[in-house]
Structure formats: structure tokens, C-alpha cells
């Protein structure tokens, strides 16, 4: 009897499947033209090459400006170096969409753009400076110290070179010990922003780099050496990454293009969605806003956060449309994800394009606000309802857009989005 009931149950469920299945089996046609998709992935490599090349050339311009600052430290050369840093961020922030999904970038990125940092590792800080709990390097002050003892380890810091500085990243295991990259340079050029959620960025005087009687800050020869070494390292790192995207070489791009085309598309979409939702909307905006925490602001020394966010968003759009406007004004364009999606579902393509436009407008709102004197760290101040609304609007637009990216992925028959686990068998 029990057996019969069980068998009846089985029969019932199969009847259900036969009788109730109103879902049509997936159409046997391919979700995209394989050859066209291959061109899309290849053009993605071309975009990466262009944007990393621009990041490199702008970093070289930054290096020249820093050389000029060190040759003659005054407010004019310092201002020029700060401008060059801001300009260098324009292409770099557009590269970040390549970070998620492409392991070669993600593993390299820490040395280049790690954030947030306990800046007391690098140089002098204010007495009120708040570091991460239990960070042994929080007040190490590399610039003021010829040697450093962490636990049982004694480190010789007498010669400040790129290799040494890179080895000090994540010192004592703390991820906020960041000795290199854009944000270390930013701290050296601006200093701490002591204004909290009030107006104003870091106010480091140019005389912190002077060696004569007017010198301020202390240990200026070492500060100069640090700035030079960390800038040289940034350039070497960007050179490495440009080489990874050159065509016709034995490098990451060759691997990507040789891989199954579906994996290439998956990486493109995963990079877009991860930057859009978890990183930009979440880590870079929502945390800072909800906690009213300027320490969690992305470019907290320079108050350049609005542009960082804007160009992050631009990078997402670039990858979808297969377009990038180079620093010299030229436009790179070619076969795109948008083409593939539109060929199968014009409505999904149109919706995502609209969402990308809407998020760009929302991020432009942050830029406009800064241009009118209210920067990101003021927008997150407690009680600033208007500021919160502006940032929440940008977060919401990015969340919407991420939904559009998911739908576009489904149009291309990509259900598993994370390239690290998509093909994994357990």
C-alpha cells in the first residue's frame, strides 16, 4: 500500500509535468552569432588597451609634474602636480570595470589603487587620526623612520625604493596599510583632510617638500624620495598592465581571446555588474553615506571623489557600448555587447542603454554639486537631507542598471555571472 502511494506520487508528478508545462523549451537557436561575439570580446581587449595606455601616459605626465614640484617646491608646482593627479584619475577610473572578472587585473590592483588606507603608515598625521583597531602599522610613519619593528620583525627602511614600499603593503596583515599607488600619492600631495564633513580638502603645504630653511613637516629628503619612488612604481605597474592587453603577444589578452567566447562575455558582464552594485553603489557610496564617515570616502585627501565615481560609471557604459573617448579626444569604438543584445532583444538593449544614461546623469549630479562647492564629504554630513537624496539617487540608478545588466546577460544565455565559479565542478 505504501509502495503504491509512493508510486502514485511519482505518477502524479510526472503527469503534472506533462499536463502543466506551459513553458516552452528554450529555442534551439544560438543566443548570438559566435563569430560576432568573438569580435566583441576582442574589441573589449582593444578598449582595455586604449584605456590602460591612457592611464599610463597620464601617470607619466603626473611624474613630470612631480619632478617639477621637487625641483622647485612652491604652491604653483604643487597645484600643477595636484591637477596632474586629478587628470591621471580620469582614464584610470575608467579601467576599473576591467578589474572584476579579469583575475590578472584584480590581483594587480591592490598595489595600484588600494583604499581606504591608514595614512599614518606613510607620514605624519594629526593627533585625532583614527586608525583601524589593532593595526600595528597605523602610526609607523615610514617617512620619519629609518627602521621599523613589527612583532618580531625588524625592517630596514633606510633606502626608500619601489620594491621596499610595495613590500610594506598590508604590513602586519592589515589591508589598510597601503604604502603605494594612487592614494599614497594623493596623501603625499594633499595631506590629511582635517575638515571632516565640512568644506575643504587636505592642506599640505608645498614646503613639506622643501629642503631649505623654509622646510616644514620634517624628514623632507625622505618625503621627496618616497614621492619619487612611489610614482615610479605606479608607472612600472601600469606598463605591466598595458603589456597584458597588447594584441598578438603571449599575455592575458591572448588567453582571454583563446578561451570560450561565452567566458569572455561573462567576464565583461561580471565586471560591469560588480563595479556597478557591490563596489560603486555599495562600498564607495552607501557605506560612507550611512555612517556619515569621511574616512570611507574614496578620494578623501583630494576631495576628488565625485569624478572618481563619475568615471567609474563611464567605464561601465564604455564596456557595454564598446566605446571609449581617449584622453586626446579620439573615440575608440567597435563591436559591442549592445550589438549582441540588440540582435536578440531590442527592448532589453534599449532599457539598459536608458539605465546607463540615467546613472551617468545621477553621477553627474555629484560632479555638479562639487563644482558648486559642495563635495562628496559634505553631502554625507549628518542632517544633510539634500546631499543624502543626491547620493541615494545615484545608488538607486546603479541598482536599476545592475538589474538591466542581469537581463542583458540572460538574453545572451548567461545565467551564472561569476567567472570564478561558473565553470567550477564540485
Amino acid at each position, binding site marked *: 500500500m505504501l509502495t*503504491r*502511494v509512493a508510486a*502514485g506520487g511519482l*505518477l*502524479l508528478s510526472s*503527469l*503534472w509535468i506533462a*499536463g*502543466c508545462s*506551459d513553458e516552452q523549451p528554450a529555442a534551439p537557436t544560438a543566443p548570438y552569432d559566435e563569430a560576432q561575439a568573438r569580435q566583441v570580446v576582442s574589441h573589449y581587449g582593444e578598449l582595455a588597451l586604449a584605456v590602460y595606455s591612457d592611464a599610463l601616459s597620464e601617470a607619466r605626465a603626473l611624474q613630470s609634474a612631480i619632478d617639477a614640484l621637487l625641483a622647485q617646491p612652491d604652491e604653483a608646482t604643487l597645484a600643477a602636480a595636484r591637477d596632474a593627479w586629478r587628470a591621471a584619475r580620469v582614464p584610470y577610473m575608467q579601467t576599473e570595470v576591467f*578589474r*572584476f572578472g579579469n583575475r590578472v587585473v584584480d590581483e594587480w590592483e591592490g598595489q595600484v589603487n588600494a583604499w581606504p588606507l591608514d595614512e599614518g603608515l606613510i607620514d605624519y598625521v594629526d593627533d585625532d587620526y*583614527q*586608525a*583601524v*583597531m*589593532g593595526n600595528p602599522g597605523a602610526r609607523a610613519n615610514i617617512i620619519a623612520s629609518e627602521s621599523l619593528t613589527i612583532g618580531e620583525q625588524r625592517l630596514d627602511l633606510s633606502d626608500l625604493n619601489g620594491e621596499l614600499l610595495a613590500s610594506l603593503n*598590508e604590513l*602586519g*596583515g*592589515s*589591508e*589598510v596599510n597601503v604604502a603605494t599607488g594612487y592614494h599614497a600619492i594623493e596623501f603625499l600631495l594633499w595631506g590629511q583632510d582635517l575638515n571632516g564633513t565640512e568644506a575643504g580638502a587636505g592642506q599640505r603645504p608645498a614646503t613639506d617638500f622643501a629642503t631649505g630653511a623654509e622646510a616644514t613637516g620634517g624628514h623632507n629628503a625622505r618625503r621627496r624620495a618616497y614621492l619619487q619612488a612611489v610614482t615610479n612604481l605606479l608607472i612600472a605597474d601600469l606598463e605591466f598592465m598595458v603589456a597584458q592587453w597588447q594584441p598578438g603577444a603571449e599575455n592575458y589578452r591572448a588567453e582571454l581571446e583563446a578561451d570560450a567566447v561565452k567566458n569572455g562575455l561573462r567576464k565583461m558582464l*561580471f565586471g560591469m*555588474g*560588480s*563595479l*556597478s*552594485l*557591490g*563596489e560603486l553603489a*555599495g*562600498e564607495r557610496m*552607501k557605506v560612507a553615506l*550611512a*555612517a*556619515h*564617515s569621511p*574616512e570611507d570616502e574614496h578620494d578623501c585627501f583630494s576631495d576628488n571623489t565625485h569624478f572618481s565615481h563619475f568615471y567609474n560609471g563611464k567605464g561601465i557604459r564604455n564596456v557595454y557600448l564598446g566605446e571609449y573617448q581617449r584622453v586626446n579626444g579620439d573615440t575608440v569604438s567597435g563591436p559591442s555587447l549592445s550589438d549582441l543584445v540588440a540582435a536578440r532583444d531590442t527592448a532589453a538593449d534599449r532599457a539598459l542603454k536608458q539605465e546607463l544614461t540615467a546613472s551617468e546623469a545621477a553621477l553627474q549630479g555629484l560632479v555638479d554639486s562639487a563644482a558648486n562647492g559642495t563635495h562628496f564629504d559634505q553631502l554625507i554630513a*549628518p*542632517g544633510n537631507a539634500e546631499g543624502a537624496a543626491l547620493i541615494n539617487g545615484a545608488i538607486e540608478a546603479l541598482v536599476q542598471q*545592475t*538589474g538591466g*545588466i*542581469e537581463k542583458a*546577460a*540572460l538574453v545572451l544565455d548567461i*545565467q*551564472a*555571472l*561569476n567567472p570564478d*565559479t*561558473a565553470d*567550477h565542478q*564540485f
Partner: protein
Amino acid sequence: MRAVMIALVAVLLSACSNPREEVTEQLAHQVLLPAHQQWHDSNAALLVATQGYCADELDGPALKQGFYRVLQSWSYLQPLMVGPMAEGNRSWQVQFWPDKRNMVARQVEALLDASSPLSQEALEGASVVVQGLSAFEYVLFDEAVDLDTRSDRYCPLLTGIARHQQALSKAVLELWEGPQGMAAMLVDFPNQRYASADEALSLILRTQITAVDVLKKKLGTPMGRLNKGVPQPWQAEAWRSQHSIGNLQASLAGARAVWEQVRSLVGDAQLVSRIDSGYENTAQKLAGLPAPLVELVQNKENLPRLQSLYDSLDNLENLQQVELAKDLGIQLGFNANDGD
């Protein structure tokens, strides 16, 4: 028997009810809504306990019991937070973690320095860091706070937080109930939230799997997985109240409650038993931990044990994220931890 069978077949064929709709309905009424109710009840009890403590009618240990109960119900709820709790910044108002820079201590003391005695209005206008359980825990457990002698300073904050949490959970519960409430959105499709049961189910699973991913983070961060293996005990969740492992257990139980309902939809029987044993193994390893997480991570001898727990969570996440999603034919989409 035959007659019953025929009748059943007829009913099934005529109604053509969709088993996924049945599952989302069961999830709504047997798992998700009760978990929200339970969380709200624990908040209401904490408010009473806090008022009692601050009126000298209740002792510290009793207040702590009330706090543990909220932690428990809140942890259970996390894998089940579809809809209202996932919107706005509601969940952020409950707990702020990770708090690497000890913002809780700074913001609590700064707020109390600026506005003492603290008004509810001042608390409502302040940051989420001071409105939730992390700040409550700081006041109740941190060595720097002498609550017994400084209750004049801290009681308005404790009461204010308890009131805020109670109001928050009440508002959320109201959004779940009623004909247009969240629970109804998981019963009849299409509706203003979901085009189909598939869409709703996908969201429920995404929420649950993301929560399992967060459990890895809650364990892995103090273990030092992001820090070259150097333990970070103060980055454990609930390290002050030493309730980290209890939180992990409650969240795992919440995740499992979803799985128990979804199980019937899975075609691959082997996969079902692998996921079942994934939950069982993880729960056993958690139950076997001998001390609070903040202490365990500080002793190297415990590392293999913690690593094995981490691997179990990882396995469980992947079984669901990859194989379960494939079996059910659903896209889980992006979650807030992607790229982390």
C-alpha cells in the same frame, strides 16, 4: 485508492498549480513572515527590558538576555530579508558591521557629548552607526563604558535604540502584512513586484545565498583571510558580547529554513542529499566550537578547525550558487559582495 488518485489528477490538471508558486507561498507564510514577527517580538521585549533596567527594576544580566535574543532573531532573519528589509537602508539601521575603525565608540561618545541627555529626535537624525545593535552592544559590553554608574549618560541612548529598533521592525512587519503586503506578493503572480514565481524564488535564493557568503566573511575576516593570515579578533561580529558563533548558527538555521522549502523542487536527488549534508556538516562544526570566536582566532591551534568550518560554508555556498541554481534553471544575478 483509485478514485482518490483520479480525483487528485483531475484537481492537479485543472488548477495546474505551479509547484514554485506553492513553494514561495509556503516560504512566505511558514518561514519569512514568522521570522520577521519573531524579530519584532524580540525588539518589543528588549524595549521593555531596557526601560526596566533604566528604571532600576531589572538587572544587567536580564538586559543582556534581552539583547542576545534580539541578536539571535536578527541573525536568523538575515538570510530571509527579501523585500522591505532589503530596501532603503533599513538593515543598516539594525547593525553596523564590519566596523574596523571603531566608529561605534567614537560616534556614540561624540553624540552623547553633543546632546546630553540624548533626545529621541537627536538619535533619529544621527548616523546608522549609533541607531542599532552595534551601539547597544558597545554600551552594554565595552570595558570603557561603566553603565552602572553612568546610566544617566547612557540610558537615554539604550532606550532610544530599543525604541528605534522596535519602531523599525513594526514598520517592516506592517509592510509584510495586508492584501498589498510583501507576503501577498509571494502568493499570486504576476503582481506589482514579481512577474512570476520564478522571479520571486530567484530573489529569495539570491538573498539566502548572499547571506551564506556573508557568513564566510564573518568567519574569515577575524581569521585573517583578508589579512595575510594575521587574525583580526576585533573585526569579529559581536566580539564585545562574544556572540559571534551564536549569530553564525542562527543565520545558518535561517538559510536552512529556506532550503527545507525549496528542496522539493530539485530534480537531482543526489544534489539534494549533498546540500542536506552540507547544512548538517556546517551546523555540527559550528556546534563543536569550544570558545567565542574572538578568542578562538587568537590561538593558532584552532586554525585547522576554523578553516574546516570555512570550507564547509564555502562548499555550501557553491552547491547552492552553482548547482542548485543550475538545477532550478534560475539566474541569481549580482549580489552586494561581488568583487569584494
